[in-house]
């Protein structure tokens, strides 16, 4: 018996192994290629959903295929591909048959099209399920060797998905990190940086790398990269000297064609090596290092000081997370620990405020729960956000594609998506108590007095409007000839101190609200609604508007005042409670473990929050289950901690590759793998896979230390290279897409660097670290632009009163999702609604308006002129100093001459007239459309912080000579040399 069963398989195998007939070839083609292709590309619309078959064409069987669809033409004609609609449609070239699949992104490649052609040409054989399985089994070994592999996961919704094969080149990111053997020895005994060996290995033949940059270029590059700030002239001079050169700062050389000595200092000497190494050490020790790295990290995690959407409430405590990130980088916190703290700090040590603050990461997405929707939907939005954000941030893997279905391209079943969601099913949002740490900057809390003044105004307004309503009520009774007795009694009762209430519970403010109290009392007493005055009786459109501005203004202040309190934007573990709306910060409830629903996560088909599929347990990406050392518990607490252990495990190849790819991007302005948030098969493949793995392995060996990686990368030859290649033609020919690293890629400064660099060259920058967000001056019209939030208007942007408060690094500027600083926005500061994997640097005209016409640069130019005049004794010296400060180099003779001439011309143009000084704006009149009435109304807003406003240096404060120099400074601050780092 046994032999007779085994025989057909043996035969089949032998047939497969030797020559096969053409018919058999076509059958094999069907099993191996056509059937999976139909499943992947066609059946979603042509068969899977019987109720909704697109164009009437059912592609599940040969019979239905031959029957055709609405066109009443057979879907194919066996033997004749060019007469077969199926073939014609997939070629996307035929006039009669629209391209299939319809989406360009789904189109078949040339090889797939040739399969369809060959299959039809070969007679379009269609095999039954049993035979297909037999053939597939017989060829399994050979085919998987050739076609790619099945990935083991927790399993998809269909068997086809679970068994599908992946081409190896799309799976690179899931493969274990392999440290490549690197040849680091070259002629003689000289050691070579492994990075350089790996780059040299991939350098196109015939392309020589550019020589090293000069010393000045290098110190600017390194300083901006590690601190986001330019070097001071003194730092530049010291570095040049260490490299063996000298800059002439006092006397400008006569000959314009000869660069001054500092400009040609070579970095190809042992002396320069030493100077570079010590420069890097100095920069890594700078507290500004943490600020610069935090900016990168907060781009990815979407930091903002407000919640976005309808109310755009401020997140008063978000700044503490921002400062936590700065501290983490400055102390070189090992990355694995950094990961664990951000995902599960509260579970690791609930008594350590630092770790509570760290979980702010989980709160970074925009979120709202308004009275307009049900909690379940809002809750699901949070869960979807946190799952995807965790994936993008740490794993370079967008997970949202698996929210509605098994991932189309990557080995991520939707089951995994919900397993990871289950990790967060007990994660609850909270503005949670966390005492201030000694290391935190708690300066400037006294600014709350401005908010308290606004609060008092709102209270007074509500009391005043209450009086208006009480008066209108009396008129109402008269006009409607109704008896006011019950009403008057109710008002009187409400006004007794014993019954007098503050605003509704949890709301902020003390004000009179007798009108509402009387209405409630009469409603409760069963008085007919028609027998007492309606809500807001007799209000004018203006009064409707004012009431809302005050009432909703109090609500908004509640969030802002939280800024000065020891709470953290964080989470806690617990059951899920029901909220109708969230209009006030949430504290951790005492009964968090017992009150509310213990969420049981299940697969939500199509991502519908009201759906219910298979129940899932907390888990990880199953394709990387090998890195999971212990199962995730089902208990309320501890899920995230165990999950974080998996993320931060050295064997998780996504995690380590993701972070070194980002570090590389931060230095070279281009990542090795082109999509730092997406290592999946649709993301760009690494240009230097071995280098990426070498970096990942080295990162772990060095104890997950960022600073160690900066040292290795920045001491490489690749990082030292000039941005100008001596042979541009060969470069363009051999490296058209610029990934060889034969030349250093210059970059435009980011929006924040641009502003910070301007502040430091004028000497105005306040280098203080951390603390509550500051409010620099932004374009005044934008600052006063009325901004609609739910039912009312957000307060105007009011800058801090003192220059030193305003002139802090851009990292600290209050980030309101609904009100980006136009200057920052126009220079590509990313919107915090999405994770920014990589900054853009576009060139658009509004940049000129902002940087050339805008008040901010005008003020900086004046401050720079004033500084330089004070620091020098002659016009020539002054110009030389401006160059040294802004460009880190002396001017050449021609530049000097042009600038001096310009200075004189402008001074002549200025004449005698002294410009008027800026007047602080104490009150702003707002025009708006009132929601209740659809009518226009206006209101005045007092800008309390302006009462003590000290403006920046004004043109009127300085002589015309200085004002004219400011125009020279303005030109330099607008120049390409200032805006680019090479």
């Amino acid at each position, binding site marked *: 018996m046994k032999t007779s069963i085994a025989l057909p398989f043996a035969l089949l195998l032998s047939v497969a192994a030797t020559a096969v007939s053409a018919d058999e070839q076509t059958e094999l083609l069907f099993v191996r290629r056509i059937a999976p292709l139909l499943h992947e590309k066609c059946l979603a619309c042509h068969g899977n959903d019987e109720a909704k078959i697109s164009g009437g064409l059912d592609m599940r069987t040969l019979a239905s295929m031959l029957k055709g669809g609405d066109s009443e033409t057979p879907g194919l004609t066996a033997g004749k591909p060019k007469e077969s609609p199926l073939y014609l449609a997939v070629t996307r070239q035929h006039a009669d048959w629209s391209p299939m699949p319809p989406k360009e992104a789904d189109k078949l490649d040339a090889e797939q099209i040739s399969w369809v052609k060959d299959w039809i040409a070969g007679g379009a054989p269609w095999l039954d399920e049993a035979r297909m399985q037999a053939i597939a089994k017989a060829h399994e070994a050979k085919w998987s060797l050739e076609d790619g592999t099945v990935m083991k996961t927790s399993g998809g919704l269909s068997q086809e998905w679970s068994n599908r094969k992946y081409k190896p080149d799309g799976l690179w990111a899931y493969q274990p990190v392999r440290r490549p053997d690197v040849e680091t020895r070259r002629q003689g005994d000289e050691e070579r940086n492994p990075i350089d060996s790996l780059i040299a290995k991939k350098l196109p033949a015939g392309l020589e790398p550019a020589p090293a940059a000069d010393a000045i270029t290098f110190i600017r590059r390194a300083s901006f990269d590690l601190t986001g700030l330019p070097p001071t002239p003194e730092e530049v001079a010291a570095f040049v000297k260490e490299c063996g050169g000298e800059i002439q700062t006092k006397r400008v050389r006569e000959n314009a064609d000869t660069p001054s000595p500092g400009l040609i200092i070579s970095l190809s000497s042992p002396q320069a090596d030493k100077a570079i190494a010590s420069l890097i050490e100095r920069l890594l020790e700078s507290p500004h290092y943490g600020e610069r790295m935090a900016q990168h990290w907060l781009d990815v995690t979407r930091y903002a000081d407000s919640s976005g959407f309808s109310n755009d409430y401020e997140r008063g405590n978000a700044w503490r997370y921002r400062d936590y990130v700065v501290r983490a980088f400055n102390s070189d916190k090992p990355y694995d620990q950094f990961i664990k703290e951000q995902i599960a700090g509260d579970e690791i040590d609930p008594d350590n405020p630092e770790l509570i603050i760290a979980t702010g990461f989980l709160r970074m997405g925009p979120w709202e729960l308004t009275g*307009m929707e049900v909690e379940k939907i809002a809750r699901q939005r949070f869960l979807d956000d946190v799952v995807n954000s965790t994936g993008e941030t740490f794993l370079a893997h*967008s997970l949202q*594609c698996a929210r509605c279905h098994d991932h189309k391209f990557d080995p991520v079943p939707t089951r995994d998506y919900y397993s990871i969601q289950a990790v967060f099913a007990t994660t609850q949002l909270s503005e949670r108590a966390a005492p201030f740490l000694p290391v935190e900057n708690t300066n400037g809390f006294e600014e709350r007095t401005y908010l308290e003044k606004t609060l008092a105004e709102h209270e007074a307004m509500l009391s005043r409007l209450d009086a208006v309503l009480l008066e209108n009520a009396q008129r109402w009774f008269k006009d409607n000839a109704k008896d006011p007795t019950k009403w008057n009694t109710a008002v009187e009762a409400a006004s007794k101190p014993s019954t007098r209430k503050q605003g509704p519970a949890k709301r902020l403010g003390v004000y009179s609200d007798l009108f509402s109290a009387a209405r409630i009392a009469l409603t409760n007493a069963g008085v007919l609604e028609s027998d007492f005055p*309606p809500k807001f009786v007799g209000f004018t459109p203006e009064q409707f508007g004012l009431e809302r501005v005050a009432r909703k203004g109090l609500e908004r202040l509640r969030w802002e005042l939280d800024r000065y309190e020891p709470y953290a934007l964080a989470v806690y573990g617990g059951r899920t409670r029901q909220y109708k709306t969230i209009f006030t910060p949430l504290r951790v409830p005492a009964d968090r473990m017992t009150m509310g629903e213990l969420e049981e996560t299940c697969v939500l088909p199509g991502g519908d929050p009201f759906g219910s599929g298979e129940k899932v347990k907390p888990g990880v990406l199953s394709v990387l289950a090998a890195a999971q050392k212990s199962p995730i518990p089902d208990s309320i607490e501890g899920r995230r901690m165990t999950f974080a252990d998996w993320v931060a495990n050295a064997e998780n190849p996504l995690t380590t590759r993701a972070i070194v790819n980002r570090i590389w991007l931060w230095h070279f302005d281009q990542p090795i793998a082109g999509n730092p948030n997406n290592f999946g098969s649709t993301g760009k493949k690494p240009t230097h896979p071995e280098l990426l793995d070498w970096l990942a392995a080295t990162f772990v060996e060095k104890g997950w230390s960022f600073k160690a990686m900066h040292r290795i990368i920045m001491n490489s030859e690749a990082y030292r290279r000039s941005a100008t290649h001596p042979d541009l033609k060969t470069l363009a020919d051999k490296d058209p897409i610029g990934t060889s690293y034969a030349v250093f890629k210059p970059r435009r400064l980011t929006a924040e660097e641009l502003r910070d660099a301007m502040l430091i060259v004028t000497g105005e920058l306040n280098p203080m670290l951390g603390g509550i967000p500051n409010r620099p001056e932004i374009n005044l019209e934008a600052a006063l632009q009325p901004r609609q939030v*739910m039912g009312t208007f957000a307060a105007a942007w009011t800058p801090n009163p003192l220059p030193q408060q305003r002139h802090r690094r851009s990292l600290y500027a209050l980030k309101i999702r609904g009100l980006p600083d136009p200057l920052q926005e126009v220079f590509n500061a990313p919107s915090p609604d999405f994770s920014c994997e990589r900054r853009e640097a576009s*060139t658009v*005209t509004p940049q000129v308006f902002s940087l050339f016409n805008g008040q901010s640069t005008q003020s900086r130019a004046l401050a720079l002129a004033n500084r330089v005049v004070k620091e020098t004794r002659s016009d020539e010296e002054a110009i030389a100093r401006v160059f040294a400060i802004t460009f880190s180099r002396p001017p050449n003779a021609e530049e000097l001459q042009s600038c001096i001439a310009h200075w004189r011309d402008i001074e002549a143009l200025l004449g005698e007239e002294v410009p008027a000084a800026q007047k602080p704006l104490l009150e702003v009149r707002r025009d708006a459309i009132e929601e209740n009435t659809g009518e226009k109304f206006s209101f005045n807003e007092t800008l309390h912080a302006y009462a003590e406003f000290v403006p920046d240096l004004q043109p009127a404060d300085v002589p015309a000579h200085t004002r004219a120099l400011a125009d020279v400074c303005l030109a330099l601050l607008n120049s390409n040399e200032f805006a680019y780092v090479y």
Partner: protein
Amino acid sequence: MEDNQMYRRDTLLGMSSILGTIAFNSMLKADDTQPSSLNIPPSASLLQPSFAKAKNVIFLMMEGGPSHIDTFDPKPMLEKLHLREFVREEQQISAMQSGKRYYVQSPFKFVKAGQSGADMAENWMHLAKVADDICFFRGCTVDSVNHPTAMYQMNCGNRFGGDPGIGAWVNYGLGSINQDLPGFIVLPEVSYPQGGSANWSNGYLPAKFQGTPLRAKGSPILDLTPPAGVSTARQRKNLDLIAKLNTEHAAKHPGHDELAARMDNYELAFRMQMQVPETLDISKEDAKTKELYGIGNDATDSFGRKCLLARKLVEKGVRFVQLYNGSWDSHDYIERAHGNLVRGVDQPIAALITDLKQRGLLESTLIVWCGEFGRTPDNGVRGGTAYGRDHNPNAMTIWLAGGGCNAGHTIGATDELGMEAVEGKAHIRDFHVTLLQLLGLDDNKLTFYHAGRFKQLSQFGGTVIKDLIS
């Protein structure tokens, strides 16, 4: 080819080429080994095909959610149920459906307008005269019940913001006709809408596709002009010094095109500074035209100016103009609030249609009128006279005029209460796909590779609503 390299010379607020970027890119040599090159489409088929009539769009965004029940979708049934308690039968998906609620009839009487007999509340007196130019669509549904997220979905296809606005997509596909003006201009209210400038974002598309708001008050473009006291002569001199510094710098850094692009940009800005105020100046329009738009009349002046400016911008070749009006969020006092709002826009919008028509521009200009969602037939505890309506993502009225739309027809229907769309029901993504189709753009081809994925306005693809197209 590197993403940002591809755009390094795209210095203009508008476009450096009369062709769209897509078309322009397709002329560049493609490198098929890296996905970034996939932002270059496979063929130049995206150039507007001859069948498309619409070349420009004027998008009238009634922010806040106008009530279909009180404007273009009469519900006589509500007169019978007026102030009777509302009973919910289905699963609660919106918190507005909790608590005691009452059916509310429309305070407005309805008429049959034009030869087509379109339903209109009688206070659309002017619009009624051009009713036959309009195609009403009652089948649209959206996903969000909150303003900003619904606004984002209507304007950008994605509820969570951050994606490119429709105007950005259209310019990406078709390019701008005018080289010195942005291709996507927004005319917001003095107060920005909920969700802010993200409503006209370029999202992941190159920055030049961002909508440029021409502000209703103050400087139309922020910092368009230098601070007070800086003369043109002085500014010119400063520009010359920048140019001098930049020229020398560029000589030292050969092979970096972006430096030249940034230099050109300063000259363009200087020209725009002169030209924009001229473009925005409507004082030279004749008195009859101004009167047509209701300019000078308190109720209609503000929106009338915007509509007239929109016509001017379209004449100048601006591809996509979006006008904001509102807030139409009438939770209370619907009669008064909607009454005032309709009064403010009725005459200007009718004038826009009339004016475009008499200039022969209506065929090539698609007008879209919509809010971010419709409103409910019922209302919460605000009984008595103060009643209004709440948000309703399941029913709304959108209308189109010009641009090859199916004018003179009403497509789709809501149930007898106006609670939800029941006939010709289509998700907003289908409406977006249709809108692109009217412009000759195929949503499935109008894609952009970003963050490792092809993205499109409809998010995941949609179906053209054929009935909206003539």
